[in-house]
């Protein structure tokens, strides 16, 4: 409104001061003079079928992309080592973040900030007692209905802060010694991975003390640990845990968490199961956010590369698509362009992070530290789009 008025005023001033008619006559009289434009502000659509979110390349914002057009729709401010959660009804974005009042010094403020998903206006900052500074997707999440948020905290003790998102207040803290991260299930629970190879499962009633159970240790956290980047369907508690060597542990998270026997993604592909030898060459999972899970179909997508053990941070040159119900390999998508020589600038295109949309015709979103990010058809591996520079090392999708 103000801007429109300024435009009109400035246009009038311009016309008053200058012989604009004479100018126009020397131009193209057949074309009408262009109308003044109003400075306005866009709002986010609520019905984008293939939206995805990334962290910005230097971490101080999340970028929102339309996966069908490849266009940025907007961005959400983000503090230090921040994380994002999307309300199940897509009406709110929740950011867990940390600020110091003078950049890298001053007072520390740990926050869950709430944004309106249409205007991207900041609605509320909730002060936390602290939060872990570790860049992992599962250091922050919300429960099935979106009424609670869980924030993983490392100091002074390994614990989880839970936030009542209706009242917009911190509701409590539960210690989880020796364990880390949050994999929410249902309305009141979450599980955490533990250093002894077990899962801790925590149930927090609306009032009264939290209850904690532990599974028996089912993996060796020193020899073949489960990646931090594992998956839970927070509505059903169905979870998929992937180990460095390539073992998939299906689980049903809850107060009585059950973990099934593992199966090998390499065996699913017709290879021998990969071991943990430091000179044992095999196709191996690796990257930053190295896998993605499509809940409805049970399909697991994993970034794979060839390498020895302890290459779990190396990005992928292929995506393997696995059916977690039948334990079958469905497809292998090479990540084009393939290198021709392996030398210099012609090295394999390693992708570090991946996400998959949760709809019936899912798209895969692949991030590369160098840019040249990709959108693929998750069923066929067809390359749909390249995006010059979609962001950093994490991908979020709605409906997860």
């Amino acid at each position, binding site marked *: 409104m103000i801007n429109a008025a300024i435009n009109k005023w400035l246009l009038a001033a311009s016309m008053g*001061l200058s012989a604009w008619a004479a100018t126009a006559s020397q131009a193209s009289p057949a074309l009408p003079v262009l109308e003044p434009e109003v*400075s306005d502000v866009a709002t986010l659509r609520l019905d984008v079928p293939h939206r995805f979110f990334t962290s*910005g390349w230097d971490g101080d914002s999340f970028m929102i992309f339309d996966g069908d057009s490849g266009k940025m729709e907007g961005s959400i401010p983000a503090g230090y080592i921040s994380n994002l959660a999307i309300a199940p009804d897509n009406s709110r974005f929740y950011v867990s973040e940390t600020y110091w009042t003078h950049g890298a010094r001053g007072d520390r403020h740990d926050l869950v900030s709430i944004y309106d998903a249409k205007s991207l206006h900041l609605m509320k900052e909730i002060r936390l007692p602290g939060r872990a500074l570790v860049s992992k997707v599962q250091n922050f999440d919300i429960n099935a209905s979106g009424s609670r948020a869980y924030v993983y905290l490392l100091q002074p003790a390994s614990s989880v802060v839970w936030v009542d998102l209706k009242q917009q207040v911190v509701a409590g803290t539960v210690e989880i010694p020796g364990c880390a991260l949050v994999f929410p299930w249902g309305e009141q629970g979450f599980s955490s991975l533990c250093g002894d190879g077990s899962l801790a499962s925590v149930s927090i009633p609306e009032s009264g003390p939290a209850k904690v159970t532990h599974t028996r240790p089912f993996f060796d956290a020193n020899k073949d640990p489960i990646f931090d980047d594992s998956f839970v369907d927070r509505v059903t508690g169905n979870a998929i845990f992937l180990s460095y060597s390539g073992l998939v542990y299906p689980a049903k998270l809850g107060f009585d968490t059950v973990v099934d026997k593992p199966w090998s993604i390499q065996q699913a592909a017709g290879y021998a199961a990969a071991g943990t030898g430091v000179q044992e060459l095999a196709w191996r999972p690796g990257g930053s956010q190295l896998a993605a899970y499509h809940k409805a179909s049970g399909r697991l997508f994993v970034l794979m590369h060839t390498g020895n053990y302890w290459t779990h941070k190396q990005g992928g040159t292929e995506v393997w698509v696995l059916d977690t119900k039948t334990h079958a390999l469905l497809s292998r998508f090479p990540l084009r362009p393939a290198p021709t020589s392996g030398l210099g600038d012609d090295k394999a295109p390693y992708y570090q992070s991946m996400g998959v949309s949760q709809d019936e015709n899912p798209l895969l979103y692949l991030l590369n530290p160098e840019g040249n990010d990709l959108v693929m058809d998750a069923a066929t591996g067809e390359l749909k789009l390249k995006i010059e520079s979609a962001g950093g090392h994490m991908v979020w999708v709605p409906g997860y």
Partner: protein
Amino acid sequence: MSKSPIDKIGEQLTRTLAGYSSRRGFIAKLGAVLAAAPLLPLLPVARAATATAPKTDFERNAQTKDDTKCTYWKYCAADGVMCSCCGGGSHTCPPGAEPSPVSWIGTCLNPDDNRSYIIAYRDCCGTPVCKAGKSCQCDGADRELPTYRAPLNNDIIWCFGNASATYHCSTAALVGLSGT
């Protein structure tokens, strides 16, 4: 001492063009200090837009189809990340950012009608800088002047009068025809 909206807008614009002295302060200081100096023109120096006038490098390559490219005609003096790559448009801020009430000014030739228009470059403010790719980070310099000609300078963060003066991206709103 209430002011009418138009007075406020006029004052705002004058402040823009005078480099942020308050209007009253500006004129007072002019009398006291700048007595020997000629009055600054109220509007940026315009230029003739004739079919025969030589074109700048930018104008020779300008196009009117794609506002996510630095060659888009209205970006002749734009500096920064273009909001059209950030969820906004050529004159629209992305969601969550706020257009600055003040702006710098350019004069760009539209290659379709061969007319020159005044463009108000308004920064969108209050959120971290937009992380669009390099191809959307533009640095137009046609008729761009130094800091001491603030209304025509594009190195200033044009985020005055906003809740926060941090820069998110830049827009280019067509204001009207440029005079000769």
